[in-house]
């Protein structure tokens, strides 16, 4: 067989796409490329691997340097953490905090982002810049006044305190992300709707929201992950035992309770706390990547 094959019609073939040269040089190049990626993945996954195998060790057997899975794995650590140390309740608390804060932040940000793109008002750019600038303020800076405020409102150790605080801290980021996306939606869609007689609310609900679905999913997921992982807010605002979240529980696990650090037990706790994130990300990965990468949808 010759390449390019003779074309019957005599029309010239378009140039063949550039490919990797055949032969051992090409093979070597492929190995080098893949080798690099494999090494990179290994570096990223190593801590997770160590965590996983350690969580199945018995505390008594653990010498602190396991690189191979133990021959007698045990679920005991998981059982202890889940039932005796109260991780079951903490899991629920974390889920409540993370999901409700993310839902509130995403919902409010969707409205704000729509307003910033579709309403014209004096000082719009300045206001948006101000909102985005607050992303730079770390939570630790506001935690004291926030705690005082919640105390005054009588909300400390009640559900809304941490949820609202977390949602508030997430809001600028969520507005920024959604605004970036909505800005790219073709304005003629909204103009057509205006001529059609649709109110702003209808434009928001029936045109903007359905088109922004990938961005909404991304915003919700990223917010939920952030809230799930946050330690500071629940530590300060949810001090009651029955409101302890996983992150707070993990922070308190170990030295304070067991005297000496029980590493396999800790690793089981960490694994439990990471699992939902891994699952959520695996399920929503495509939507998230799309939301982050794509500007708008035609």
């Amino acid at each position, binding site marked *: 067989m010759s390449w390019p094959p003779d074309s019957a019609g005599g029309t010239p073939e378009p140039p063949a796409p550039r490919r990797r040269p055949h032969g051992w040089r090409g093979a070597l190049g492929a190995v080098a490329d893949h080798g690099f990626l494999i090494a990179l993945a290994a570096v990223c996954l190593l801590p997770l691997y160590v965590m996983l195998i350690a969580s199945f060790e018995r505390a008594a057997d653990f010498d602190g340097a396991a690189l191979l899975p133990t021959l007698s794995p045990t679920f005991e650590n998981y059982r202890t953490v889940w039932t005796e140390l109260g991780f079951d309740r903490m899991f629920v608390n974390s889920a409540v905090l993370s999901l409700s804060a993310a839902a509130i932040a995403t919902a409010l940000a969707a409205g704000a982002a729509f307003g910033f793109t579709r309403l014209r008002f004096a000082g719009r750019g300045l206001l948006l810049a101000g909102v985005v600038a607050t992303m730079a303020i770390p939570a630790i800076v506001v935690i004291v006044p926030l705690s005082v405020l919640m105390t005054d409102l009588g909300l400390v150790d009640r559900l809304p305190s941490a949820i609202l605080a977390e949602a508030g801290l997430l809001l600028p980021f969520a507005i920024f992300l959604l605004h970036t996306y909505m800005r790219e939606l073709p304005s003629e*869609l909204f103009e*057509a*709707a205006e001529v059609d*007689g649709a109110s702003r609310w209808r434009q928001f609900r*029936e*045109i903007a929201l359905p*088109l922004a679905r990938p961005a909404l999913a991304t915003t919700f997921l990223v917010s939920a992950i952030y809230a799930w992982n946050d330690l500071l807010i629940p530590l300060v605002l949810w001090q009651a035992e029955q409101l302890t979240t996983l992150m707070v529980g993990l922070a308190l696990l170990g030295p304070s309770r067991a005297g000496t650090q029980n590493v396999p037990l800790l690793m089981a706790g960490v694994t439990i706390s990471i699992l939902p994130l891994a699952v959520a990300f695996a399920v929503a990965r495509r939507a998230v990547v799309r939301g982050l990468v794509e500007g708008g949808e035609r």
Partner: protein
Amino acid sequence: MASLALIGARKAYPGGAEALRGVDLAVADGELMVLVGPSGCGKTTALRAIAGLERLTDGTVEIDGEDVGALEPAARDVAMVFQSYALYPSMTVARNLSFGLRARGVARAERDRRVREIARLLELEELLDRRPRQLSGGQRQRVAMGRAIVREPRAFLMDEPLSNLDARLRVQMRGEIVRLQARLGATMVYVTHDQVEALTMGRRVAVMDAGRIRQCDTPAALYERPADTFVARFIGSPPASLLRGRLGEGRDGELECVIGGVAVALGAGAEAARPALRAAVGGELVVGVPADGFALAPGGAAGIPGTVALAELLGAETLVHVELAGAGEGGAAATVVGRFGRGVAAVPGDPVAVALVPDRLDYFDPETGLALDRPAVA
């Protein structure tokens, strides 16, 4: 349906672009008005101003004689078909069609009835459950039209609705839109950049350039009596050729024009048809010659001497491009395009003499570009 009017409409965009520079346009109730002009001349801006999507810098928009400048788009109750169609991507065709009715609170039974009726009228019945991305260009165009019609608005504004279609479909849809407009008795402003489309569709056509309406007339009048050199060069395929000449009197007192060193008699009827010519004697003139205003005389015969540059055979007719020495501005050469039968003898490079058909000529002021026998257009 209602009448529409733009009166002294000006629009300057922030940043300085002056899209409308004093536009007067009156569209009668039930009339199809075609607005034609090159890209960027302000056609879309004019439609958006009528729809209420842009506020005029100056001037007024009237619907049925009422100043609607302060009304929101929804309150003006006109429908607009966008060049991009702007179909709602997340909705099915059925929901796209009913969107405006839902927004205006039309009851469900009435909504369904009207959507079905429009779907039948525009042959969209099979497509009602599809989404815009699953439609061809022609189908999208029909949905966009349907979305406008179903609302039974006071007027239709169409922004180059056929420009995204292939040539064959475009020609077919032209006819359908004209029929539809007549059947609905709709007031319609139809925008296009294609003068052929404009001439075939409009009873009246407004020719626009650089934010002004140059002439608003019937297609025949635009072709036969262009108001200025822009219209002469824009209308017709091929458009008229412009030549420079000096107006004088022949021995018998009849008007003649010297073009490229040759005196062309304007004929006895010229002065009667265009009284302003007499006053221009002794001055420079721009002479507009439509493509069918030429006669070819090979070699030596009487006419303006020139050289054949190109001969294009287009089926039944031939377009001949001829270079005429000294007939352009400041004595430069001018290339003219004439339309002839298919048998015309014209070989590139050959010398020819070009005669002009006196009745078909138009005369323009070289300074203003305005036709000599027309009052100046503000």
